[in-house]
């Protein structure tokens, strides 16, 4: 459904994308996982035709997204990161307008609007002005507007930012249902638990480059770290840190990426072990995969 080749984009000296490739098949959910500024939004903005790449190609269902933007755009739906709806219009009017904009025939629009509203739990609110909705409801409407024309490729840029727990769960169910109907989905997020809940194919992007791709289990298998994470009451001296091969991953918290028993760590710390607050074995999870692939932790956005 989507084929991206060699996508590069720079803003002055800042390279947002450095030759990224990406393929997404029908019915597949791809979670783009990366920190702020990793290149996620730039990538989906280029795919949606909102930005022009410096180099590279985007093909959507066989149409070149730059040369045949009109046809390609009809196949995709995008919900940008910031909530973009018309507060003065009702939920129904918003959904019908975006359906209209995407070329859905007049007679079909009301049915589509009602169907999407039902799936997103907005049926009771169809005739309420969008400005009167709660933040979570607005976020659902924002997402609904992206797929009211049943796009073949749906792109959601951090759809759950600012959403409550119930809305998150509802959106994730909705995304899965959309993929089950055959749409390809690209979903950018900071939240690892969402990626797991979506059962998505995970693409780790950092510094404008795609560094790894696979299912959760594949990535964990390929990149899992054996090691320990420990916290002290004070900063570990540079020399000791180097001797242990420890990386600082938080305030007074360090990680050793090697198979090391707790006893051995205590012995290596010597007198400093008196300052130990906690020691944990590193579990093979997405967080450790992300750390192994990018050399950094994935900061989770607090809402």
């Amino acid at each position: 459904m989507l084929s991206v080749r060699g996508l590069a984009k720079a803003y002055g000296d800042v390279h947002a994308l450095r030759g990224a490739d990406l393929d997404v098949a029908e019915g597949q959910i791809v979670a783009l996982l990366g920190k702020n500024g990793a290149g996620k939004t730039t990538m989906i903005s280029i795919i949606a035709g909102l930005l022009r790449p410096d180099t590279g190609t985007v093909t959507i269902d066989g149409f070149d997204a730059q040369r045949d933007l009109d046809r390609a755009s009809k196949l995709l739906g995008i919900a940008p990161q910031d909530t973009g709806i018309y507060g003065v219009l009702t939920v129904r009017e918003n959904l019908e307008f975006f359906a209209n904009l995407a070329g859905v025939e007049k007679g079909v629009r009301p049915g589509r609007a009602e169907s999407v509203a039902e799936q997103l739990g907005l049926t009771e609110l169809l005739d309420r002005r969008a400005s009167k909705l709660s933040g979570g409801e607005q976020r659902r409407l924002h997402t609904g507007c992206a797929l009211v024309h049943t796009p073949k490729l749906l792109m959601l840029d951090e759809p759950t930012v600012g959403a409550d727990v119930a809305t998150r769960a509802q959106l994730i169910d909705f995304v899965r249902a959309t993929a089950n109907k055959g749409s390809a989905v690209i979903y950018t997020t900071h939240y690892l638990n969402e990626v797991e809940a979506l059962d998505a194919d995970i693409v780790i992007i950092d510094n404008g480059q795609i560094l790894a791709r696979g299912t959760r289990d594949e990535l964990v298998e390929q990149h899992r770290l054996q090691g320990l994470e420990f916290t002290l009451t004070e900063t570990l001296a540079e020399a000791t840190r180097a001797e242990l091969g420890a990386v600082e991953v938080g305030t007074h918290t360090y990680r050793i990426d090697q198979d090391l028993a707790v006893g051995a760590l205590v012995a290596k710390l010597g007198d400093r072990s008196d300052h130990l607050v906690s020691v944990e074995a590193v579990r093979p999870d997405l967080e450790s995969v992300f750390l192994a692939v990018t050399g950094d932790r994935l900061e989770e956005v607090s809402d």
Partner: protein
Amino acid sequence: MDVVRAIVGVQLRIIRRDPWFLVIMFGMPLVVMPLFVKTMKLSLQAEGYADATGAEQVVPGQVVLFGFMVSGSVAFSVFREHGWKTWDRLRASAAPPAALLAGFAIPWVVIHVFYQVVLMLVGGLFVGLRLKGSLIGEVLILVAYSTCLIALVLLLTATFRTINQVNAIVNLGAMLFGGLGGALVPVEQLPGWAQVVSPFTPSYWAMEGHRAVFLEPGGLADIAKPFGVLVGATVVLVLLGIRKFRADEAKEFFA
């Protein structure tokens, strides 16, 4: 074309939901008109129009002046989309820049013409404005002036980054062009230098057209020149606007 129609539809709906700016813009000239009729009657009679009521200057003058301010609304509509974060959603429809501009321009041209027509009719009812010349000629001038102003404001929209900048320019332009163009007092009463500058404003040509049918029994031939100048200016402004407009440029609405 479908995209243009969709944007026109939603813009009209949004305007209908929040009409207060327009209501106020209708009210202001209606308050001003009666205050100046007597003065303008004397002024026009001094010019040689013995049977003038003063409404022939005051009503078109206020329509031209406040019409300029109303035209600023098209910029507000575009910048508001940026503030509402819906602009990128419109762009994702793959509409070419000219289609996006048309989607915002068309409703405001229609509203602007309607605005002028209503004020003229009210002027006829309450301050004695009477048409002596061609009705079609007057309609052509109204339409040409509306189109010209909307094209001018869209060029400003394409040029400036914030709504505050555009608002400032539109307000300044309304007073400056209105004054120089003869909307406040007849051009003949302006200082010499102002009379030289006057023809470079759309207000001047709109007023020329109005005078031809309200002060004189002018026909289509008499409004041909002002109409032609306004249409020519519109074409130039539209071409400049399309050339200057970049849909991917960030715009700042009110913080």
